[in-house]
């Protein structure tokens, strides 16, 4: 079967449409069964663990005392929400997501516009720009923590010494800022990758026409480029928010949430309560709060981009 004969056949299809409806109906019926495995496994993936989390959050359950469990109502939530670790975890989560989003979107737009003009070595420049996105998070964290930010032999220390400045002990003095920095390094390339690709479909003739009409670079950027990037930016915000809300490996391998609670976000807090302190009840309550938070974010995000995703 090759495509040319197929195309010829396609022309005959309208003639034979009557006899086709029977087959089509049959296939449509069969195709419904083809969606069900996906829907089924994802349904299980959502419902089973989530209902277990809800159940655990309402009982006393510590893995160290597995037999001592009784219904405690909302006590776990009360403990989780009133502990100082929660407010720290909450604000760190929001700062981390907000700061990284801001950095990656602003610089992502600027850099992708910058490299959209043709110049020598454009291909290599683009490859270098997107590379950090493909580095695994644990490598990212350890390379930054040791090779770059180490207060004794790190590259940043050498740079500050070169300029005669006092070297900075990044992870001790500015722990959250350091985390923001290394996470941004990973996600800025993602923004660049998406925005760079989106810019390639920008109408060049329209730009040329506007330029001939005397529009300056700022006007071009403001009235042609930015509106064109609105949807891709919304997509970047959505995807990044999903992943940034649960940043874990970068914290796990560098600071372990410390010093104190300075770099503990919700994901790390719940992990430490579950697998370091074995308090399943408390961790489940925290997990549900994380789910709630993600749902609030998702509500707005899907509203923001969901429509443009399916309207095509």
């Amino acid at each position, binding site marked *: *079967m090759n495509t040319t004969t197929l*195309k010829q*056949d*396609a022309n*005959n*299809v309208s003639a034979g449409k009557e006899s086709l409806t029977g087959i089509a109906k049959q296939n*449509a019926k069969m195709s*419904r069964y083809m*969606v069900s495995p*996906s*829907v089924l496994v994802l349904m299980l993936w*959502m419902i089973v*663990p989530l209902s*277990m*989390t809800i159940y*655990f959050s309402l009982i006393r359950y510590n893995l160290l005392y597995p037999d001592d469990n009784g219904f405690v109502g909302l006590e776990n939530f009360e403990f989780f929400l009133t502990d100082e670790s929660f407010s720290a975890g909450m604000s760190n989560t929001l700062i981390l997501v907000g700061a990284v989003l801001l950095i990656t979107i602003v610089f992502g737009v600027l850099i992708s516009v*910058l490299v959209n*003009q043709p*110049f*020598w070595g454009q291909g290599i*420049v683009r*490859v*270098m*720009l997107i*590379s*950090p996105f*493909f580095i695994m*998070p*644990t*490598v990212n*964290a*350890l*390379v930054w923590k040791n*090779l770059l930010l180490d207060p*004794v032999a790190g590259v940043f220390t050498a740079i500050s*010494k*070169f300029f005669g400045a006092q070297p900075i002990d990044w992870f001790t003095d500015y722990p959250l800022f350091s985390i923001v920095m290394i996470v941004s390094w990973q996600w800025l390339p993602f923004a660049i*990758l*998406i925005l760079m690709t989106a810019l390639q*479909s920008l109408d060049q003739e329209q730009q040329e026409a506007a330029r001939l009409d005397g529009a300056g670079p700022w006007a071009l950027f403001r009235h042609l480029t930015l509106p064109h990037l609105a*949807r891709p930016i919304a997509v970047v915000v959505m995807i990044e928010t999903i992943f940034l809300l*649960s940043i*874990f*490996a970068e914290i*796990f*391998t*560098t600071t372990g949430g410390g010093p104190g609670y300075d770099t503990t976000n*919700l*994901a790390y807090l719940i*992990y430490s309560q*579950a697998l370091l302190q074995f308090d*399943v009840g408390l961790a489940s309550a925290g*997990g549900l709060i994380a789910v709630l*938070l*993600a749902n609030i*974010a998702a509500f707005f995000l899907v509203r923001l*981009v969901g429509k443009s*995703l*399916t309207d*095509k």
Partner: protein
Amino acid sequence: MLNLKQRRRIQSIAMGTLGWLVALTIFFPIFWMILTSFKTEIDAFASPPQLIFSPTLENYLSINERSDYFHFAWNSVVVAFGSTIIGMLIAVPAAYSMAFFETKRTKSTLLWMLSTKMLPPVGVLVPIYLLFRDLGLLDTRLGLVIIYTLINLPIMVWMAYTYFKEIPKDILEAARMDGATLLQEIWRVLLPMSKGGLASTVLLSLILSWNEAFWSLNLTASEAAPLTALVASYSSPEGLFWAKLSAVSTLACAPILIFGWVSQKQLVRGLSFGAVK
């Protein structure tokens, strides 16, 4: 006075130079990691850091000394390919059906699948951990394969869906007229026509599974630990092995970097759920 052409030229050179500077800055940590992997431990920890040194392959040759590198690498391979193959087997039929037999519910099903990605992993960490403990799946490759299949499935369905959408329905109908069964239609017509798209779906799934570092750190210990966990083990303060860390990291990242470079354009579609092409 410069004319327009000259001005454009100068502008282009200035933009190009700036572009190169930005790119080199962003790429520097990777460059430095690769460079450090060829240093001796003493050179690696030298202060100030050395750009010129006598390179050594020692770190790569002794990569198995501290821990069995190939054991971890093999786990990464098995888990990434296992979850990708199973994921494709579930995702392709679903995407086919949604692309060619659209019903009222198709759009909401697609959006619902996307919404499962928004469930934060910490929200289900505890039950999954306990379920895995009771089912004997903790620290097994099978366990990770199951999890990765589930977390990547929505992206795979979306990506395959957007590629299938571009194939004219008529061609499939013509095959059906020729008496092709459903399986023949998918195998002989649909798959050959969407090879490129499905290849990049596979690549994206491999990349995401290879780099996943929440479940791999929490659900594995030694038996099934992939490379993400091996690298994380270097964070313990038992002594600084920067050169060895760099060598292991370089090896662990190299295949995925190359995959990413090769397929950057197509990945955008999957990563943006089809919104950017």
